[in-house]
């Protein structure tokens, strides 16, 4: 009896699986479960078994009956949905792709910078791109007649209206309004007349950092820059600072990082020096503090201004800065 039931279930399974229409399934249902069906037939023979065997065999027969019923039901459902699915299936045919866009590499990098400094509690601020002489020069310790004010280094609209040549002007705007402690990061476009070639442009992006508080030192500056660079390029990157000059910081430093392409052993990108120049930084010059009414005896400040375009070029291996503003869609789609 047991073997017979197993055989019936196996046959039913095969037949139900092979059925391709609702009518066929109905016929199978009748054949197995109908009033004159196979199972009825076999169950009628239960009485011929010994009373000891009877309950187990009865249970088994019932289970087989239920199994066949649900097999029929499932098959029926699967036949009712998406009949075309059963046609020849080709997973390699293209799907109906939605249009997709991309963010500009400058935005990708700016976002990363933002993320790093957000974690450190820096506020994100912006300042005007068209600036007056006070914010772009005077308050930044660049007095009249200073060479940094020349027309070869700045775009002028009038004598007192300049398209900013660095984001440091945002420092002044913030310090004029806000009392220490100050912790800001200011990304932005800057402009300096230059002949355009693969590595120079008169339009580029900077990110400016300013921190003003009691007890900030050059050691903090170096730590923040290191943290930032490693957040951007990975923990293995080495950071080196060397003396430099900017009117608005003192002491001032230029930051180099170990070449992200060769790891410092020397290659074409780092001109065999093993180092890449990142940007300027330093302790806020006391003259700048005086210009905005912050007491340099009480507070110290640190600041840096790094080029975002340079980060993007290094990160993505872009070898021509002009690609960043040409906006060739074939280029843009790569990011």
């Amino acid at each position: 009896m047991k073997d017979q039931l197993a055989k019936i279930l196996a046959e039913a399974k095969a037949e139900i699986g092979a059925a391709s229409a609702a009518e066929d399934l109905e016929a199978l249902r009748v054949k197995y479960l109908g009033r004159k069906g196979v199972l009825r037939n076999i169950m009628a023979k239960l009485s011929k078994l010994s009373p000891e065997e009877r309950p187990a065999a009865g249970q088994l027969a019932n289970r087989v009956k239920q199994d066949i019923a649900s097999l029929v039901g499932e098959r029926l459902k699967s036949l009712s949905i998406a009949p075309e699915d059963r046609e020849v299936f080709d997973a390699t045919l293209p799907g109906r792709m939605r249009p997709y866009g991309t963010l500009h590499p400058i935005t990708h990098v700016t976002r990363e910078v933002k993320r790093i400094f957000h974690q450190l509690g820096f506020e994100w601020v912006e300042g005007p791109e068209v600036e007056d002489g006070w914010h772009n020069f005077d308050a930044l310790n660049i007095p009249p007649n200073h060479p940094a004010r020349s027309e070869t280094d700045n775009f002028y609209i009038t004598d007192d209206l300049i398209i900013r040549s660095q984001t440091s002007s945002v420092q002044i705007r913030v310090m004029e309004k806000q009392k220490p402690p100050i912790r800001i990061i200011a990304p932005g476009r800057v402009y300096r007349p230059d002949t355009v070639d693969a590595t120079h442009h008169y339009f580029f992006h900077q990110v400016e950092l300013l921190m003003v508080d009691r007890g900030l030192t050059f050691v903090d500056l170096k730590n923040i820059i290191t943290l930032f660079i490693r957040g951007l390029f990975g923990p293995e990157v080495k950071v080196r600072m060397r003396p430099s000059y900017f009117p608005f910081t003192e002491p001032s430093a230029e930051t180099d990082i170990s070449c992200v392409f060769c790891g410092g052993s020397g290659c074409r990108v780092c001109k065999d020096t093993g180092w890449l120049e990142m940007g300027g930084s330093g302790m806020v010059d006391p003259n700048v503090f005086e210009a905005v009414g912050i007491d340099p005896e009480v507070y110290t400040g640190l600041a840096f201004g790094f080029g975002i375009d340079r980060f993007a070029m290094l990160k993505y291996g872009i070898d021509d800065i002009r690609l960043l503003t040409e906006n060739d869609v074939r280029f843009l789609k790569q990011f």
Partner: protein
Amino acid sequence: MKITLNWLKDYVDAGLPQEELLERLSAAGLNIEDRRSLGDDLYVELEVTSNRPDCLSLIGVAREVSALSGKPLVIPTVEYKTSGVKVEDVASVDVLDAGLCPRYTARVIKGVKVGPSPAWMRKRLEAIGLRAVNNIADITNYVLMECGQPLHAFDYDRLNERRIVVRRAKAGETITAIDRKEYELKDDMLVIADAARPVAVAGVMGGLDTEVGDSTTNVLLESAYFEPVSIRRTSRALKLASDSSFRFERGVDWKGVDWASRRAASLMAEISGGEVLESVIDVQGEKPPVVKTSMRFSRLPVILGIDVPADEAVRILKALQFRILSRDAERVEVEVPSHRHDVEREIDLIEEVARHFGYDKFDVEKPISIAVTLPSKEDSIEEEVREMLVANGCNEVVTVPFVGDDPAGRACFWDAEEPLVVRNPVNKREGLLRRSLLPCFLRVKRHNQNHGVADISIFELSRVFLPKRGRKLPEEKRVVGILRDGDFADLKGILESLFAGLHVGERVTYRSSESAVFSQGAVITCGEAVLGQVGMVSDRMVVDYDLRGRPAYAEIDFKALVKEVADVVRYVPLPRFPAVERDLSVIIDAGVPWGKIRECVEGAGIETLREVRFVDLYSGEHLPEGKKSIAFRMIFRREDGTLTGEEATGAVETILERLKTEFKAELRS
């Protein structure tokens, strides 16, 4: 500053391996820009920041090397015999503008034999990129590179009346300089003249007429201190720069003026066989003041964050030739050497100490405190807008805001005065500051079209510059620009997705408007606020930018949009009762916009009407001339019970009646 290491050794022997010497120079602020082997010598180009003209010479560099290595600085001794004749008896110097020329010295060397310089000198000059000319010119260049003091040698016999007059140029005066070009001088330029005419543009370049040549036998040697700003202005105005002007405009060492003159004179005596006349004409105006300043030792850790022992700080200052005037436990007072114009304040001294103590000593791990900040609403929405436009197939661009003076370049959707004009643009044809992103996008469109990329969808969130009456700075409005190859509905669809995503879509309306920018355009409003405009770019711009095809463009005021977005989203309970949908198709005058029809439907006073959705528009065959058929779906629902079919039918009838009265609409059968 270009040097060779062998030449440098004349002044200091650092006793360091080559690589270590270069590394230490770099670490002290003289970065190695370039280097090249010259056989047994090494050519090195050092980057000298603009505040350190004292390092624009071999001796200047040697001074730093001496300070960082502790080895002595060796200055060449200057010795020569002089003839009995005094220079004052054969030449005179009148300084008419002591403001622009606070010091002028002249020596005369007679009987020089002009010819090639000795090989060792030519080799050194050529190694640092200078062309050897003749012994006299080469000596002036050699001494310039040696000590940083520019010199000029005049052919004494060609100076009218043997006079030097230092004065401003007269209007209309010209000079042919030794580069054989003629320069027109202005009256704010300082010249060196003789009794009759200018013979040199002071501090910039000598004149051709009085240049030392083969026939020269007597030389008048100039060594001077010129006012830096004047030299820079003149050099820029004439577009003429030289090794001399480069140093004068950064400031030379007052005290070095005479040494350089004597050094050159001695070399001329030695090399060219000349005889130096006795004495010197040295006309001095106001001497730069001696700078004294002091440093509190307690400020070192405050600024630097590490302890620099007071003794070490003092040692560094001494090694850099600061004269220690006094010192106690708290502070040190110093006199700044005359070649260091950049040092005036305590912070300047701290920097000197830090520089020579070594920036590598600041490698101290120190945690930074963290603080909590939340992104502003504007920041968050900015990111959302970018994401949504990307999801709608737009590529983000970054464009330069300089535009041309053409209709697109002048395009403006906002309240603004005339565009700002850049005085010194890089590209003369693109001198305006944009008031719209449109011209920048048309450039991008053209670039792509010309590079075989036909259909583009681009966007940027950037600034336009809107001059305002009575305000010094322009308003820098942040706008979202979108340009897309496609029809009006394509771009409007993107805007709708964007607005829906920001949950302002239901309140946004589009009203057709005429403008020079668009052939078909609309003003976008949200409630009372104008958000911007959208439309198909006008013929004129398509032609101006050589476009194949007419793109659609939209510009949205980002701040205005942000203002409309709710600060917090509040959940509305889901409806508890089912809705009834009914479609209506009406024939109506072609000129009636859908917006009006919808307003009419919504205004029909049906309380249970929840939504009106456009379904289809048809015009043409089977319809009378000037008519169109519009189909739309209405969704009715009650919040307090199930709406019956009869109620819905009644509502549709009311709406149809309303459309009939208002627009003479007819039901389409």
